[in-house]
């Protein structure tokens, strides 16, 4: 493991859609093991930033490093194999697979077992056991054999996180993980993440400021495609520029 405390580094990121510049030279570093929130008003570029880091969008300039490795030219799957994980703002799951099958699939992909072979899934007992353990830890043990499309919405949100978590990423990017959940459910989800993903560097986009200020170690504020502030939750709360641009007072 590298001694560099910066695990993910975005340097000079720029992207434009047509004539619309979303970012122009954005810099943002993640420190190993931190829980880092990215906030900003709608259209600030939060999800675009996650899209750029995970390879679903390509920057027009700049570079991204993960653990010192330049991953700018990597496709999303290569970035995952390099240690990046993500959840999506809108549930992006496997509707026809059972919850357990989805997690076993994630584990088989992680362990390089999903290649053409005649060895049935039933023979991969280590992955099955690990899937059962992960589901139990996230409170989805009872739903292991439920078809994903039949899960309650909150359980589906949780499964989003479980699938990303199962890959054992070094950096996990969560795009509004609590979207559509009640305040109570959102809080539970973050509490589970805080305890289960200890040691994993987390970057999350979130609109609920209570969750942000409770669970983030550091906060970055985007507005108009620029990073206008960065600091601890207390520093951000008191930042006048942030209050003007985002918090509205």
């Amino acid at each position, binding site marked *: 493991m590298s001694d560099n405390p910066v695990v993910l580094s975005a340097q000079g990121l720029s992207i434009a859609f047509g004539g619309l510049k979303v970012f122009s030279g954005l810099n943002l570093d993640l420190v190993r093991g931190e829980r880092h929130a990215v906030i900003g008003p709608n259209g600030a570029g939060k999800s675009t930033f996650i899209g750029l880091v995970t390879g679903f969008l390509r920057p027009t300039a700049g570079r991204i490093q993960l653990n010192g490795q330049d991953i700018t030219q990597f496709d999303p799957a290569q970035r995952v194999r390099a240690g990046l994980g993500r959840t999506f703002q809108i549930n992006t799951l496997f509707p026809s697979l059972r919850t357990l099958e989805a997690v076993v699939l994630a584990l088989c992909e992680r362990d390089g077992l999903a290649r053409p072979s005649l060895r049935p899934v039933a023979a991969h007992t280590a992955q099955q056991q690990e899937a059962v353990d992960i589901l139990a830890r996230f409170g989805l043990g009872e739903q292991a054999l439920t078809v994903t499309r039949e899960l309650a919405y909150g359980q589906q949100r949780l499964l989003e996180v479980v699938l990303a978590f199962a*890959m054992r990423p070094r950096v996990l990017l969560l795009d509004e993980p609590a979207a559509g959940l009640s305040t109570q459910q959102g809080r539970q989800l973050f509490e589970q993440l805080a305890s289960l993903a200890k040691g994993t560097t987390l970057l999350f986009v979130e609109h609920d400021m209570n969750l942000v200020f409770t669970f983030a170690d550091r906060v970055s504020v985007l507005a108009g495609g620029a990073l206008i502030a960065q600091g601890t939750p207390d520093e951000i709360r008191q930042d006048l520029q942030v209050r003007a641009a985002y918090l509205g007072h």
Partner: protein
Amino acid sequence: MREALAATAHFRGMARVGRWEAAFWLALVLAYFVPATNHALLGQILIWGLFALSLDLLLGYRGIASLGHAAFYGIGAYGAGWLGKYGWTEPISALLLSGLLAGLVGLATGHLVRRLQGVALLMVTLGLNLLLFDLAQRSSEITGGDDGLQGIEVAPVLGLFRFDMAGHTAYLYVLAVALLVTLLVRGLVQSPWGLALRGARDNARRMAMLGAPVDRDLTLSFGLSAAIAGLAGALMTQTSSFVSPEVLSFQRSADVLVMLVIGGTGLLYGGFMGALVYLVLRDQFAAANPIHWYFWIGLLLVLVVTFFRAGILPALADRLRRHKPGGLS
């Protein structure tokens, strides 16, 4: 602990050979010994079933629709025809070579279409099929044109079993190949790779975020599906000693899709069920009315899709499950 046991039981249950599955193959073996059986028709059903299984791997398990699957069937059929005509008469190696040829073309096609979806994918597969069909018709000195390829020789299977006029050897040969290929596909779809295909069918974006090589898997599944279609085509040539450009026709691509939809997709045996229903009824309808029998086939398709949306096999399985817990496994 309870969840772990349930998980193991779930995956073991998926891998276990079901009673109905065993009964299906046993009945086909026993049919060989029943004197009044129409072995030629049963052989046709198995070949079409194998062809439909190849499409099922692509459509049912990977979610890729193809309107041009006859292209691969035809390549396999002509591969076996040319080999037999020009001296390579040993049937098993000729069969494997023909499947390999179709598989290689399938890999190239899969690479070409790996980024396409929906209507664009249908149009490209259909276009490739039509191109090949037209090419085969124009190149009559190579393909035999409408008269078909003449002089195809097929040596006895394993040097022992000569293809007879009654079609007994042909039936056993087709049955053995169909069983082996089905077992192979069964093994593949129940492996983690099979789970990955189903995952990509549901959500390719999420598969990318599991680090899966989605494009490579699609190309491989296309190649494998094409190879199996090629084997089916080669079987048809070897058992009939005849092949004409009709094997590459769009009609054949449409027929195999209809069979699969009638039987049910993503079930391994949906194609065989669809081929059985389609060919038996076609046989009956054509005997009753040689001109308008397609009307009844059309009606059958409408009725099946209306009343058994997922196909006949899932409807039967569902009914059996309701009557008997653990009925159709």
